[in-house]
């Protein structure tokens, strides 16, 4: 089995944090999101990360930070969003180009997964299988793709149907970006990917339509799709659990305070400020500020400002003048 991680998006909704950084390389507790994903993949499994031409070099640099893992960076020939291959299109390009005839552990590079993937691999017995996250509240499932399964007491359930963002969800199970595509269905996958390169979830509906049994492993462990500023901040806060993490190279003076979940990256100086539920990437100077629910990118200098619920672009200098 080989692992294929989709990381080809341009993450325009997370601008400006993703202005010069791929979404899967956004830090979560000081580690790129992609490193968190890779840590869940069994150590001996070869990993291919598919990315776009814009972030190719960054991805290669990231792969070098994990020398013990067998990671191949596959760069799609796409420099802009409108040239994207599509998620399934990227899988197809990889399978065809590399002549791959192997089972594929398919993961989304912009999802945080808290569950153990070895559990999924153990549960795989030749049928397509995916991980469904149980929201445990049916009303929350409205904005996700839901998975309707046959009721049984077993760990692995059989999928009956899928529903995309249903108004009245029938299930609290939502599909995650984790699945295994069996090599037996390679031609079906390639054919479907050719027709619908964007519809990664559609392949499972296609399996059902072709009477191929699709299985589902239900997990209640943490899973987050990091698609927006809100979800990125919320994921950080969930992981921080109301604690404050500060890199040893950073400093906080006695007149400053940190509340809720706060992550402070390296080389940051905080003085006379209140920081609440924030993520500071690092190399910033924060003086006389009140920051709440913010993500501050690298190299910012903020003085005398109160900011609420904002992503702050790398290199931003905001220094309140004495007469304003």
């Amino acid at each position: 089995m080989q692992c294929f991680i989709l990381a080809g998006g341009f993450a325009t909704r997370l601008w400006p944090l993703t202005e010069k950084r791929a979404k899967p390389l956004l830090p979560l507790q000081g580690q790129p999101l992609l490193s968190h994903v890779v840590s869940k993949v069994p150590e001996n499994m070869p990993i291919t990360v598919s990315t776009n031409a814009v972030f190719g070099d960054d991805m290669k640099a990231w792969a070098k930070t994990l020398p013990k893992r067998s990671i191949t960076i596959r760069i799609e020939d796409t420099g802009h969003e409108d040239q994207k291959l599509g998620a399934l299109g990227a899988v197809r390009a990889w399978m065809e180009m590399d002549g791959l005839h192997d089972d594929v552990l398919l993961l989304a590079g912009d999802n945080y997964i808290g569950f153990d993937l070895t559990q999924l691999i153990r549960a795989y017995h030749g049928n397509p299988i995916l991980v469904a996250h149980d929201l445990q509240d049916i009303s929350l499932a409205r904005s996700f793709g839901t998975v309707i399964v046959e009721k049984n007491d077993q760990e692995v359930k059989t999928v009956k149907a899928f529903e995309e963002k249903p108004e009245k969800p029938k299930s609290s199970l939502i599909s995650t970006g984790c699945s295994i595509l069996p090599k037996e269905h390679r031609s079906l996958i390639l054919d479907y990917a050719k027709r619908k390169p964007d519809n990664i979830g559609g392949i499972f509906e296609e399996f059902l339509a072709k009477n191929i049994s699709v299985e589902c492993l239900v997990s209640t462990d943490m899973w987050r799709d990091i698609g927006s500023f809100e979800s990125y901040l919320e994921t950080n806060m969930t992981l921080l659990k109301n604690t404050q993490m500060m890199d040893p190279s950073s400093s906080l003076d006695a007149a400053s305070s940190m509340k809720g979940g706060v992550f402070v990256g390296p080389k940051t100086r905080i003085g006379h400020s209140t920081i609440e539920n924030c993520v500071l990437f690092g190399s910033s100077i924060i003086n006389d500020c009140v920051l709440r629910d913010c993500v501050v990118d690298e190299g910012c200098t903020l003085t005398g400002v109160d900011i609420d619920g904002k992503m702050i672009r790398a290199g931003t200098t905001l220094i309140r003048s004495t007469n304003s």
Partner: protein
Amino acid sequence: MRRSVLLFIWLLIDLALFLAAYVSAYFFRVGFIISTDFPLDLYVRVMFLVAPLWILILISFRIFTITRVQSSIRNMIHIAYSSLLALAFFSLAYYFLYGQFFSRLLLVYAGVSTFVLTALWHLAFDQWQRRILRRSPPAYPLLIIGANRDAERLITLLNTKQSVFTPVAILESRGTSQKDIGGVPVLGKLNKLEDVIKEKKITHMAQCADLEHTLNLLSVCRQHGLTYMLLPSVLGIVEGDERTEMLEGLQPVTMVAKKSVFRF
């Protein structure tokens, strides 16, 4: 560069027109002779002394700024004030230097002709400048943020009025199916901001939407040395009753309710 050359020509001709207005006033009043009672050389000396002051008065009224619409009533009033001030300086300078006054009618002639000549010249120059600055490549390429109807209105307005600011590109944070608005191409989402600024050599940015990105757009403008403009509609001010006022030295954007008796 184009603007600097234009500005130099503009100031030079303003100076020449001021001198011409005062010389013509002299001849209209005195007659087309060189009077010995009222020597021309003394008059011209004062004229040359006051001419730079006249330019400084115009500059202090911000008449030469790129955003100034020369045909606006405000601009005409400023030219009139400047003409009056120049007249006052001229009278005082003449009195201080030579200890005497001269024809009041000459002053009226000089004041009126300064205003008329300057106003007409500024109107003509404004049109000429707009054409020159809009020539490809435009001197002030404007990037528009937001692909909404406010952006469309702004583009129509700027193009109809032949504004010196030429809309060259639109970026929209949420994405849109529109390929162009009013002939201006929609080039994508905000992740293309840096590329578009470099490729299109943007000098000005007008924010027509995406209030949540104001702080970061300002950051981009500061880093690239762009001038940032925010449409009042982004803040929900759409009734045209916004004014900029000073609040103890602060300069907030102020919206004054139309029914209010005491306007602040």
